[in-house]
């Protein structure tokens, strides 16, 4: 790694000042699991590393019935997985967070770091987009809140501005009768990074079908919401044929990454299977549409 200076602000305001002051020469440092690898490979060579560990304003997980769930950016995946508020109100999030990567990384990596690094091959972004998450960002000019879907611009690229820090995620309350499902595909048991994942939230039954969110992650540069499939599932009763047609549609609409971990067609076929199986799991109980 190139030499650098480590700065350890003790407030959000101080952290913002330091990041603004050093601009492109600075990186924010949370858990550091991704950052250190990038620095050792010289993909990133900041001269100033701003550790966020002592910034209290970006910690904490809490649920309020009006706003929903608030997750501080410095929350580790293990914290999210074990939080009673998350388990009670968004069990799919706890399940996803408790299964990603490996135990060591779950104890160290933060959700803020995960989202700001915007590596496609991870679990959280798709799940959070399916839950309509928003991100709150702080800068010298104040706070702004944008949908996570808008925050994740491209692979390794977010809408964060220089001198800005991700403060927390906000996840709105879910309809009481909603159920959510998360599944992912790893090429081998030794892999920690998914080649594709699916987040499926059945929000409510409607007169014509079901209201859902269906988001594919990891197979695409940023999470891809399958709006056409959602519309389709909302417009007819569920059946095995509907689930299959939905999967066909998702595979058609997918704009996959093609790289050494999996080419586009491979990811497309995995996504087809994930979509079909997840829709069936979500909507069929004992062989009958639920």
């Amino acid at each position: 790694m190139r030499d650098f200076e480590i700065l350890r602000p003790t407030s959000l305001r101080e952290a913002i000042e330091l990041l603004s002051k050093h601009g492109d020469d600075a990186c924010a440092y949370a858990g550091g699991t991704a950052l250190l690898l990038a620095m050792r490979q010289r993909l990133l060579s900041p001269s100033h590393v701003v550790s966020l560990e002592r910034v209290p304003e970006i910690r904490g997980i809490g649920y309020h019935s009006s706003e929903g769930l608030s997750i501080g950016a410095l929350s580790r995946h293990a914290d999210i997985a074990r939080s009673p508020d998350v388990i009670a109100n968004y069990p799919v999030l706890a399940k996803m967070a408790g299964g990603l990567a490996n135990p060591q990384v779950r104890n160290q990596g933060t959700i803020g770091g995960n989202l700001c690094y915007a590596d496609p091959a991870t679990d959280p972004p798709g799940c959070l987009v399916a839950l309509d998450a928003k991100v709150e960002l702080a800068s010298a000019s104040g706070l702004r809140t944008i949908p996570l879907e808008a925050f994740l611009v491209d692979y390794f690229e977010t809408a964060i501005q220089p001198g800005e820090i991700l403060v927390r995620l906000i996840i709105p309350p879910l309809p009481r009768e909603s159920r959510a499902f998360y599944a992912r595909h790893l090429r081998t048991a030794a892999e920690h990074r998914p080649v594709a994942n699916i987040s499926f939230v059945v929000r409510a039954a409607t007169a014509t079908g079901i209201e859902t969110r269906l988001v594919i992650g990891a197979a695409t540069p940023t999470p891809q919401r399958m709006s056409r499939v959602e519309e389709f599932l909302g417009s007819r009763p569920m059946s095995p044929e509907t689930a299959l047609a939905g999967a066909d549609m998702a595979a058609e609409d997918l704009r996959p990454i093609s790289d050494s971990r999996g080419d586009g067609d491979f990811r497309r076929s995995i996504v087809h299977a994930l979509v079909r199986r997840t829709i069936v799991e979500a909507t069929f109980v004992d062989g009958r549409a639920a």
Partner: protein
Amino acid sequence: MSRTRIHVTVNGEALDTEVPAKRLLSDFIRDDLNLTGTKRGCETGICGACSVLVDGEVRKSCLSLAVQADGHEITTVEGLAQHNELHPLQESFMVHGGLQCGYCTPGFLMAAVEILRHTPKPTEEEVRKGLNGNLCRCTGYQGIVDAILDAAEKIDGH
């Protein structure tokens, strides 16, 4: 190159020292503290041979900076045996063939401590899930899993 003062507790001993900003926790433990039980395996955060406990939680020390340990407690494999007695996990690993070359073993022991801390009576599946951040090239894992399940019984007072 800047140096930062840090205060860390390592295997129960408090230390005040200075480290360069870019010193990795793994290198600090091995090179500055001479605790060479913690291994450098892949240096890319995959193999887990560098695993240590930070405030009782297992982490990969090759993915941490030494300055990140400031104000925290580190436990390495050298801290498992107490008063000249092996930790039950260390004994079980010996008895059940949980090691051959031994290079990955410190990392596995630290991961095992974490498993048993969260789940004193784990199922085999829970053990395997808890080991999913560690790689072994020698044993094929079964001896490691048997060792941890056996140690769980011993620790739990059977």
